[in-house]
Structures are given as structure tokens and as C-alpha cells.
């Protein structure tokens, strides 16, 4: 009986320790989660700052100026548009003046043979 009581006591003590350790472990995990959340929040703040920087750098007036001054780009002109059907024809004309892929620039593709009846 006495032995049983001692064993029971030890089991209870062991269980108590186990529960305590589990609780401590959970608390540590929770703490790590909170730390990570704080890190995420910090990163989000940093991202917000970077996005704001990006927006400043890509604002239309800045990009427009750079595109115009350094790349010589300009707003699209209606004459630069063409219908899909006309594009096919235009491409055909262009191809006769363009080098074949992989060929030096001076190589000119021959004009396609006319379709024989």
C-alpha cells in the first residue's frame, strides 16, 4: 500500500512536471509567435516605406521626363497604330528588309516567291 502511494505520488509529480514543461513550451512558442508577428509588422512597415519610395520613383512626371530625355520616347501617336490585317502585310514588307534570325545584318531575306496558280 505504502509502495503504491509512493509510486502514485511519483507519477503525479512526473505528470505535474510534464504539464508544467508543456505549458512553458507553449508559452515560449507563443512568445516566438509574438516575436515573429512583431517582425512581420516591422517588415510590413519597411515594405510600406519601400512601396512609397517606389511610387515616388515611378510617378508619371518623373518617368515621362526620363523616357523623353534619355530614351527619346514620346506618347503614342495614332499613326503608330494599324489594323491586324494591315499588320500582316506590313510585316511581310518588313521581313523582306530584315536579316534572317541568326544571320548577320547584311544578309537580306529573299522576297517570298509569288504563289503559283
Amino acid at each position, binding site marked *: 500500500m505504502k509502495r503504491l502511494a509512493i509510486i502514485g505520488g511519483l507519477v503525479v509529480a512526473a505528470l505535474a512536471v510534464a504539464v*508544467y514543461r508543456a505549458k512553458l513550451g507553449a508559452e515560449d512558442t507563443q*512568445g516566438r509567435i509574438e*516575436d515573429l508577428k512583431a517582425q512581420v509588422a516591422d517588415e510590413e*512597415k519597411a515594405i*510600406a516605406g519601400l512601396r*512609397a519610395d517606389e511610387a515616388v520613383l515611378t*510617378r508619371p512626371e518623373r518617368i515621362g521626363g526620363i523616357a523623353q530625355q534619355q530614351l527619346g520616347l514620346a506618347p503614342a501617336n495614332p*499613326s503608330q*497604330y494599324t489594323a491586324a490585317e494591315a499588320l500582316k502585310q506590313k510585316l511581310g514588307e518588313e521581313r523582306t528588309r530584315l536579316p534572317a534570325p541568326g544571320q548577320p545584318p547584311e544578309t537580306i531575306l529573299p522576297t517570298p516567291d509569288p504563289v503559283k496558280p
Partner: protein
Amino acid sequence: MRAFAAPYEDVWGPRRARIVAGVLALIFVIIVGRSAYVAFNGPNRSALPIAKAEVARRGDIIDRKGELLATTVQGKSLAVDPSAIWDSRDVVAGIRSVFPDLSEDALTALMSDKKRQFAWVRRGLTDEQVKALKDTGVEGLVFAEEPQRVYPNGKLAGHFLGYTSIDGVGLEGAERIYNDQLRKGGAPLQLTLDASVQFVLEEELERAYADFDMKGAVGIVLEVNTGAVRAIASWPAIDPSKRGEEGNDAKTNRALNARMELGSIYKPLTVAAALEAGVLKPTDMFDTSKPVKIGAVTVRDLHPLPHATTVSVTDILAYSSNIGAADIAQRMGPVTQKTFLAKVGLLGGQPAVGPQWASPLVPAQWDATAMATVAYGHGLSVSPMAFVMTYLPFANGGEYLLPSFVEPVDPAKVERKRVMSAQTAATVLDMMRMTVLEGSGKNAEARGYEVAGKTGTAEKPTPNGYDPDRNITSFAAIFPASRPQYVVLVVLDEAQPRTGTQRTAAFTAAAIAGKVIARAAPLLDVRPVLEATATRAALPGADAAEARAQ
């Protein structure tokens, strides 16, 4: 003696020992129990706030393509700890070297209150200001981190975006209107605005100032099938980060909050109302050669039309005849006219949510005089926003709809109200196309984008009548005319050309509208049409005009 002879027998000993042991055991049990209780039920360490859940970061505002228009970043603000300051003169001098606008007396008084440990000096510092303050090396400065609302695009859409207080509470514009949503954080508020189109519109209004000495300007671009507002600008622009520090001229968002008599851009509405009422046929001809007296007003044409005795409805619009418009109004009468204008929202009516615009100033009595003047855009003051909506029916087959400011806009869910037949809409649209091809709107033509529209020039009303030296010039446009996609309104307030003397809409607002359309159309994915799609021969009244020409 026996008691002394006999060895001492402590009969209480074992019992006392048991009692002491029992008490000790009890104390031990209580301690262990309490420890266990604390261990298992005590406060959770993780529940102790590391940084007590921060107030939700104010939501971003983005345009329809996701471009950032307003965001919140961690910024620094300057505070002081007066209790830690030994020599306040040094600190005041140091702070004023960076912020000379701060009062020396006020700062000194602040520093002298040694009971205080914290007091704000300047909030929302720039990085340069922080560095400059640190470089002063003075004591007692506190750099507190706090959220700061920033507008990366500067003045872009400044009037519409509005601004917040230093504490992040929306005070004006979208920041105020959508404050509750923004304060919750989460997903950004996506506006229907297109930052690129907004930029083009604002830049053209700014450039207009180089050509015209003007008091103010408005530009609006709307998508015709949904009422989605792609750009809305009021010039002079404001920088939201300045939180309303601009002068009074810039403070008003003219697009929404100003009321104006917009002049002849009303004439297409007059024609549409009469066509709908069945009192006008597109082929009808008018005699506009003589002034006409209607009610108490004598209506004149400032520039008499060629062949004024036989003028088609198309020419009344193309050459902007006040006499012709008043004649048309007279056919339908004031009640029909008023009913039609009410249908297209010019006599009031606001959406329940979202941005609101100024209520109209309507004639006290809608009699013959009011009817005649309203026919050509006088006597009824409305906001540019209210007016631009009236051109949507011409562009979408006859349906009036309210503007949308926030994405997503589902065309199937947009509330529509038929205010004219598709035929009437198409007829008036053709007439407006002819106004641009041959009439007063020539300067608005943007090659490839088939601009249809109408000019409006209105002298400004004063307590002593209309002022011939100050006017509002406007141009309302639809493009492309053969498959309308967008409506554009440009209004210039007191535009006075810096060179030349022409200050009618044909030379001011129409030209600006044309430039806006030419630049905005590619950004809005409107493909140009390079072949002409409208000719005078195709328009109502063409036979008579041809006969007249011969």
C-alpha cells in the same frame, strides 16, 4: 524524588513532533499548491503585450491599376523632455536652426515647464530634418516614431484624395469620405482613377495656365458605360501633404464643389429634350437672323450664323446659336424642359454614399425667360461633376447613370435610367461630331479619336448682371464618336489668352480638351480610327444644307 530518580520520559515528545511535522507538511502543501496554481493558472507571459496590438495601419489608396496614391509609413516626430533640459536657450536655438518658423517665445515657454517630461515640437519630420536636428547635438530631443500619411505622387489627384490630420483622421476628400474603411486597415481602397490619365489631365490644365491667365480650371474624364471616373482634377492643384495650407483659390475642389453657369454646352440637352418630346425633327430648319424676345429676355447670337435664315439643328449646335436654342426650347415649353433636366440630374439628387457635389442653383421661377436662358446654359448653376454626367446618355445609347469612384465597378450592377431613346442619343452625338469637324469645336479634334463635343462660353453673373469681361469657357466631349468610350469635360474659369484676344471656348477649353484626349486615349486603350466616320452628308438636315449651298 522519584521523579528525579526516574529517567526523563517525555510523553509529549512524539506527539509534538507529529504536530510540528504536520504543520510543516501543511505549509509545504500550501506552498506547493500555490506554486502549482501560479504555474498552471498564472498570467500567460505571451499575453503580456510586447507592443500592445498597434492601432491598425491606415489603409492605402491605390488607383485602378494598383498605383499607390496614399500610404502610411513609419515617420519620426520631434518632441522634447523639458525635465531633462538644462539649458533651454541652446535647445531652442538648435531647434530654430532647423525650423525657423517656430516661435522662440513659445519654445522657451515649453522648455521652461520642468514638470513635463514630454511635449510635441514638430510632427512628421523628413529624413533631412531628422539628420539636421541630430547634427545640432542639443540635449533633450526625443525622436518619436509614429505613422505618417504620405502621398508619393505629390499633387496628383490632390483635391480628390484630400488629406488627414496629423493623427491620421481623414479631413478632406476621399480620406474623409472613406475614413471608416481606411482606418480599419486591411485591403487598400482602390479608386476608379487612372493615375496616368489623371497626370495627363492635370499637366494639360497646368500647361493651359501658360497660355491663359486663368483663375481656375476643371477637368473630368468618365467611362461611358459605367460612369467610372478615370480622372478628376481641379486647378490650382493642392499637395495633400500640406494639409490644407494652400491659399483659398486652391482650396476649393472646383470639380465637385463649385457651381457655374456653363453656357452653350447645354444646347445638346435642349435639342435632345425637344427631340424626345416630339416637338423637333432633326431635319427642321430655323431662322436665326434676328434677335428673338422670349419672356423678359431678348436672345441674340454674338456671332450671327452664315445663312442665318435657314439654319439646321446641326448648325445650331455646330455654330452655337443662342437664338436657335431658345427657339427649340420655346417649342417644348418650360415644363418639358425642366422635367428633362431633372431626369439628367441637373436639378439635384446625390448618391447616398461616396463623394458628393454641390447642389444646383436653379431659377426661382421656371418661366419663359428662365426657359430661354437655360436653353443656352445661363440661369442654372451646377457643378462640373453634375454636368458631365448629362453627356453619358449621348455616349451610351440614352442611359443616365451616377458616377463610380471606387473599384470594382461591375457594369451589370450599375444603376441605369433611360432618359432618351438610343436614336435621339445617336442623332445628337452626330451633331456634336459635326460641331468638332466643322463648327466651333474644331480645336478639340484629336486625330484618330473622333471627338464629338460642344463649346460653352458664359459670362459670369454678378449682382449687377453678367460681366462681359469675365467668363467661364467649357468644352464637353465624347470620343470616339463612332463607338463612344469616354466623356471629357474641361472648364476654364476666367481664361484670358496671354496672346491674342479670343477668349471663347473655341480657342480655350476646346483646345485643352483636344490635347487631353490625344494623350489620354492611348492610356485608356482607345484604338484610333484613322478613316473619317462622319460626314455632313450623313447628318440630318444635310439635304437642306446642300440645297442652300447650291
